[in-house]
């Protein structure tokens, strides 16, 4: 046997402080009521730092700072200068990418291979892409004189902390808005390091404000009467609450919510790449991906063969220390998320689906869940309907393309879908009929700053990325 020796990425590149304040008006400040919370490393349950919890007063202060920066500095600033700040930020992110990647893996639990090779390159690319838009907005196709909205309230999730920050902040700033962003309570650290990067770039005070905290902080932020725009990525349940909260206001809303994507494999698929795509689809980032291919639909006549290959491939997945460069699957982000994954998986077993995981030793401390598939799943099972947001795949079969489309669309969600077949015309036929915002054909979980991302139906509305991503931040 060829055992890979531990290959840990060094933590020394990260300089963790014992505590972090809020980033308001260009400075780190203490919260008005002094509340704090702890953020832990989910792979060890080690406390990484204490982080300030923003209350209503702090949020108000941040919104006022953003308003002032919008009116006095960022709004009046020529686009070409806004662009230069964004380019600067992109460059500093590239230069400090290893530090950011290690910190992301520490706080989130995702493997360093992903934070290093996927998250960070995409983060830098996103800023670089939108930087170039800042002085070309009149060419974006939204009329001759597109105007910014003002102050954007942005609430992001814990699955891609820095990448979601980039998806929110880059287009907002390029379009001329200022922002108050709330990172998720379990993953605030890279956002706070990003605040330092804003300082390093000499970004004018108040253009970017970071308020850390939990759901209450987010609620106060989106409900603040001083914001003109609300952008949220997270669960459909919270998205619904936000849509209600902004009813009757002027606030423009974009929502990027849950998903239960079908990954559809036909009998003529390039099977080895399809198996890779299935694995990437559900086990990338521990399955903490809103567009994860969590429902595998296999054409019945090849189901056994594909499953055999899939299981063989899953047995090769390396679960463990997120900072080990050879780790494929890291830690589940929090105890709460682990509990939810367990609950739904247990429901899958209880409802009669057959559960399988490769033999896999999980660390004793921290939050872990072995990569798991359920076969014999029907559309009626909870694990085929509810978003698990973990490394759990539900396998269903179909007989005809029409049946595949019907099953794929039979969900309130509509974020993404996958198609695997060597027949080009079938891909296009399927792509036309799938009610999903992103369709990956013979690939899966690919992202690019130029490519619009967002859902149909209860997966939300508005698009992030590309020219479309500007629309949510412009008065058009």
């Amino acid at each position: 046997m060829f055992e890979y020796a531990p290959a840990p990425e060094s933590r020394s590149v990260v300089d963790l402080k014992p505590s972090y304040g809020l980033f308001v008006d260009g400075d780190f400040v203490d919260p008005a009521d002094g509340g704090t919370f702890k953020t832990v490393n989910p792979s060890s349950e080690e406390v990484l730092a204490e982080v300030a919890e923003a209350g209503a007063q702090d949020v108000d202060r941040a919104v006022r700072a953003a308003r002032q920066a919008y009116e006095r500095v960022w709004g009046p600033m020529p686009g070409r200068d806004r662009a230069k700040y964004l380019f600067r930020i992109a460059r500093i992110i590239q230069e400090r990418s290893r530090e950011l990647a290690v910190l992301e893996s520490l706080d989130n639990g995702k493997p360093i291979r992903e934070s290093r090779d996927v998250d960070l390159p995409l983060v830098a690319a996103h800023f670089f892409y939108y930087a170039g838009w800042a002085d070309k907005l009149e060419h974006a196709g939204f009329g001759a004189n597109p105007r910014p909205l003002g102050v954007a309230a942005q609430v992001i999730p814990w699955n891609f902390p820095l990448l979601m920050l980039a998806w929110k902040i880059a287009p907002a700033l390029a379009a001329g808005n200022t922002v108050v962003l709330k990172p998720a309570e379990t993953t605030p650290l890279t956002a706070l390091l990003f605040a330092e990067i804003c300082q390093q770039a000499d970004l004018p005070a108040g253009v970017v404000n970071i308020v850390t905290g939990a759901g209450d902080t987010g609620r106060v932020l989106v409900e603040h009467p001083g914001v003109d725009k609300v952008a949220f990525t997270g669960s459909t349940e919270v998205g619904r609450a936000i849509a209600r909260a902004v009813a009757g206001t002027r606030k423009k809303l974009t929502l990027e919510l849950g998903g239960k994507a079908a990954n559809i494999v036909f009998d003529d698929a390039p099977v080895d790449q399809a198996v890779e795509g299935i694995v990437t689809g559900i086990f990338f980032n521990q399955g903490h991906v809103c567009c994860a291919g969590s429902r595998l639909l296999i054409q019945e006549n090849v189901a056994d063969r594909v499953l055999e290959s899939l299981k063989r491939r899953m047995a090769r997945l390396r679960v463990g220390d997120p900072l080990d460069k050879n780790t494929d699957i890291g830690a589940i982000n929090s105890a709460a998320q682990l509990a939810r994954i367990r609950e739904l998986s247990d429901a899958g077993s209880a409802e009669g689906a057959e559960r399988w995981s490769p033999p896999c030793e999980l660390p004793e401390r921290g939050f872990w869940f072995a990569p798991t598939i359920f076969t014999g799943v029907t559309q009626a099972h909870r694990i085929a309907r509810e978003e698990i947001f973990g490394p759990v795949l539900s396998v269903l079969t179909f007989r005809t393309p029409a049946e595949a489309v019907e099953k794929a669309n039979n969900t309130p969600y509509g974020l993404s879908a996958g198609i695997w077949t060597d027949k080009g015309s079938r891909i296009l036929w399927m792509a036309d009929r799938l009610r999903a915002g992103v369709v990956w054909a013979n690939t899966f979980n690919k992202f690019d700053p130029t490519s619009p991302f967002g859902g149909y139906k209860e997966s939300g509305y508005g698009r992030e990325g590309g020219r479309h991503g500007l629309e949510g931040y412009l008065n058009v």
Partner: protein
Amino acid sequence: MTATATSARSELSELGRSETALRTFLHGLPGVDQVGAEQRAAQLGTRSIKTTAKAQAIDLAIRMVDLTTLEGADTPGKVRALAAKALRPDPADPSCPHVGAVCVYPAMVPHVAEVLRGSGVHLASVATAFPSGQAPLEVKLADTRAAVAAGADEIDMVINRGAFLAGRYSEVYDEIVAVKEACGSADGGRQGRPAAHLKVILETGELATYDNVRRASWLAMLAGGDFIKTSTGKVPVAATLPVTLVMLEAVRDFRAATGRQVGVKPAGGIKTTKDAIKYLVMVNETVGADWLDPDWFRFGASSLLNDLLMQRTKLTTGTYSGPDYFTLD
């Protein structure tokens, strides 16, 4: 072998009898998506193999080297020196293993055989009008028999790429079958000497697509090849990680279908330890431990060996070595 595998094997053995059956089968194999295959290969290339794993990998890689010289200028003196190096790659370190085989032209086989006799290092000879394969079948078979008679226990043949690309699969198949037979005909097995192992060179750089690589792999295995090998080293594109990935998938699937294990040999362009380790990682994660053995995986290379030796020294001594401290060949 299971009953299913036995029957699958006998069904597959019938394929060679009909051009139509062969074509239908080869074109019925699953396609290979180029981008996906290349990404998988690149991803495996990011594995970080350090310390004990690296030491283990380097020794394994040395044991897998087919130390090769295939030059018009090869002389008995040159190939004897190479054979000596194959036996003791690092004269300063007796713990260093010997390589898998020495690979030369047929005319050079007798000179190498003298040196290697009884050593456990195999003697491979290219044959069948290497590298182009553009010769009458009788010539190719005579080439093969001569190499085996002179002491080669491994034959690296080239397939007829022209016939393959023209879709004349039976022709390619029949030729491999004939060469395989020639491999065993040196002494008719009378002295109990086993037939030479047949490595079938697909020359993947000329096959243009991964779909063709997969088909050619199956064709070579169906016809009885013991190894499938990427390249002659004589065309611009030699072994690559994704081509090797497709071939590894083919041997994996072939064993699952027939129960017979076939080896894989990437050749050409593999020059550094880092490269070699990427291949070993790929073997490990695609086909597993069964292939992590010189009997089932080889590197066709020459300069690779010295880099492996330098890295080996670095691991044992902690200092970086230089080319002056290793023998040139």
